[in-house]
C-alpha cells in the first residue's frame, strides 16, 4: 500500500485547491483539538461590563451581549462543529456501508426491503422529522447527532448499493467466485476497498453540510444548547443583537464559510487523487 498512498499523496499535493482545503481543514482540526490552549479566554466567562465591545487588542474578535470573548467562543465552537459533524458522518457512513453492501450484494428480497426503508426515510420532510425527534428527546448535542445520522444513512447506503451493484457483475468478482471465494471474502477484500474510497469523498464533502445543519438547528435553538459555544449559537446571538453589534454575525459567518470551502476543496481533490486510473492519466 505504501507506494499507492504515496501516489495518492502526490496527486493530492499537485492540486493547489486541494492543498488549500487541506490547510484549512487541518487548522480547524488543530483549533478543535487544542482549544483550551489556543483560546485566550474561557468561552463561558461572562463580563457584562465589556459587552458588545468591538475588535480590540484584548478581544481580537470583540465580545458578545454577555461580554464573552467571541474569538474563544469561535475556537471552542470549532470543537462542537467538528465533533458533531465527524461523529455524525462517521457513524452514518459506517451504517451506510453496511446496509449498502447488504442491499447490493444480498438477495433480491432484502434489497427491495432495504430500498423501501431508505425511500420511506427520505420521503419524510427532513425538518419535520428533526423537529419531531427533538420534541420527543429534547434538544441536545446528542439528539442533534442522532437526527443527522438518521437522515444521512439512506443517502450513503444508496450510494454504496449503486456502486456495489455495478461491481457485483464485473469480471473480477465473477473471477473470485470461480475460485470458490466466500461471500465474506468477496465483500471484505474486493467490494469494500472499491466502494469505500468514493464514500470517503462523499463524506468529506458532506461534513460542511452537517456543520451548516448543526449551525442552523442551533440557530433555531433546536441543536446545541446555550451556553455551549457553537457557531450556530453565536450566529443567533449576533442576529438578535444585530442593532447593537453588527460585527458579530460576520465574525460567526467567517469560520462557517471557511470550513465549507476547506472540506469541499479537500473532498474534490481527494476524489481525483483516489482514482487510480485518473492518476495514471496525470502521470503519462
Amino acid at each position, binding site marked *: 500500500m505504501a*507506494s*499507492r498512498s504515496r501516489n495518492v499523496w502526490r496527486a493530492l499535493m499537485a492540486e493547489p485547491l486541494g492543498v488549500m482545503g487541506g490547510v484549512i481543514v487541518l487548522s480547524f482540526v488543530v483549533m478543535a483539538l487544542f482549544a483550551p490552549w489556543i483560546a485566550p479566554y474561557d468561552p463561558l466567562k461572562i463580563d457584562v461590563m465589556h459587552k458588545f465591545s468591538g475588535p480590540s487588542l484584548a478581544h481580537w474578535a470583540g465580545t458578545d451581549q454577555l461580554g464573552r470573548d467571541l474569538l474563544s467562543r469561535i475556537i471552542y465552537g470549532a470543537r462542537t462543529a467538528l465533533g458533531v459533524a465527524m461523529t455524525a458522518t462517521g457513524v452514518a457512513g459506517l451504517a451506510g456501508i453496511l446496509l449498502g453492501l447488504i442491499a447490493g450484494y444480498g438477495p433480491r428480497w432484502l434489497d427491495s426491503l432495504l430500498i423501501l426503508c431508505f425511500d420511506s426515510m427520505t420521503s419524510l420532510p427532513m425538518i419535520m422529522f428533526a423537529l419531531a425527534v427533538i420534541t420527543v428527546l429534547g434538544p441536545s448535542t446528542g439528539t442533534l447527532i442522532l437526527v443527522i445520522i438518521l437522515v444521512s444513512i439512506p443517502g450513503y447506503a444508496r450510494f454504496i448499493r449503486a456502486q456495489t451493484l455495478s461491481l457485483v457483475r*464485473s*469480471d*473480477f468478482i*465473477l*473471477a*473470485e*467466485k*470461480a*475460485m*470458490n*471465494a*466466500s461471500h465474506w*471474502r468477496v465483500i471484505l*477484500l*474486493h467490494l469494500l*476497498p*472499491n466502494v469505500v474510497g468514493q464514500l470517503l469523498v462523499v463524506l468529506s464533502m458532506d461534513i460542511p453540510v452537517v456543520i451548516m445543519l448543526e449551525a442552523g438547528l442551533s440557530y433555531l435553538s433546536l441543536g446545541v444548547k446555550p451556553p455551549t459555544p457553537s457557531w450556530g449559537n453565536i450566529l443567533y446571538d449576533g442576529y438578535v443583537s444585530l442593532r447593537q453589534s453588527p460585527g458579530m454575525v460576520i465574525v460567526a459567518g467567517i469560520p462557517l464559510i471557511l470550513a465549507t470551502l476547506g472540506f469541499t476543496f479537500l473532498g474534490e481533490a481527494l476524489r481525483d487523487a483516489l482514482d*487510480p*486510473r485518473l492518476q*495514471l492519466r496525470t502521470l503519462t
Partner: protein
Amino acid sequence: MSALYEVDNVSLDLAAPAAGLQRLLPGVAPRMTILSNLSLSVGQGEMLGLVGESGSGKSTLARAMMGLVDITSGSLRFEGQPVKTRSDFVKVRQGAALMFQDAVASLSPRRKVAAQVVEPFQINGVPLPEGPSTATAMLERVGLSPALAQRYPHELSGGQARRVSVARALALNPKLVIADEPTAGLDVSVQAEILNLMTGLRRDLGLSFLIITHNLAVVRHVTDRVAVLYLGRMAEWGPTRAVFSHPYHPYTKSLIAAEPQADPRKRRANLALKGEIPSVLARPPGCEFHTRCPIARPCCAAEEPAPRMITPDRMVRCHFAAETEQRISGGRHGTELEH
C-alpha cells in the same frame, strides 16, 4: 482419451427482458434460450477449441461449467462425478480454472498482483507451496519478472495481465483451464507467446484446455479438436485438422472462408457469410442457421436437423451433411460458397 469434463444435453434459459405488464403475469414472461441441448466433452490432456460469433453462447457455457450461472436442464460431469450441488462446484473450481476474456478486468483493481495470484491458495485453504516466495515463483513460471508482483492491475500491459491470469489459473495445479478469448486484444507476437505458454503447460503438466474464441487461426494451430457453436447449439465438432480441411456444416465453412488472409495473393473475391447472428429473442425455427445459410432449402426452416455422426469422432447438425459427405469423399471439395 478419457473424458475430464462432460457436458451432456445442457440447456440454459433466462427470463427475457419482459415489457410492461407481461412482467406481472407469472408463466407468461418470455424465456430466451441461450444454450440448447448442448453436449461437449473435454478429454484428459486435450486442447479443445470452441468457436462461434459473439452471441453464440460460448462464454455462457464456460460460466455454466464453473457454476457461475445455473443450467436449466441436462447434466455436467467432472472427472466422472456428477456436478449438481454447490459442493460439487467447489470441487470443480479446485480442479478447473477459468480465465476471463478481459484479463485486466478480471483482476481486483485495488490489490497488487502478488496478493492476487496466491488467492486460490488462501480461498481453498491450501498452504502456500513455496512459502512467502510463492507469488514470485508463480510469476516466473509464466515468464513474468518478479518485479511485477508489486504492481496494480492497471499498471500491466495486455500481455502481462494475461500472463498473470494464467499464473493464477495454474495455482492449484488444475486439470482443466477454460480460457475465454485468451488472445483477444493482443499484438500478434504476444498472441503467439501466450499460445506457446499454454501449449507448453499442456505438454509439461498434462493440462487440458478449453479455448473459447472467434479467432480461427488460434484454434487451427493449437487445438486437437474443435467444436462450432451457433446460437447456443452445436453445429459441428471433430478433429481440428479434419474440420478445417473438410468442414461439413455450411456455418463452419463460412467461418473459415471469412478469416482474413495475410497474403494479398489469396484475396477472396467474395466474403461468404451475409447478415448477422439472430437475436436469441427471435430464434429462427427449424435449423437456426437457415436465415444466413447459402445452401438452405425450404425444409431447413421447418425441421430441426438431428445430430449426425459422420465418423465416431465427428458430429454435424445439418440436413445436407450426407450430401456434403458424398461430395467430399468424391474428391470435390465444397466450393459452392465461393461463388
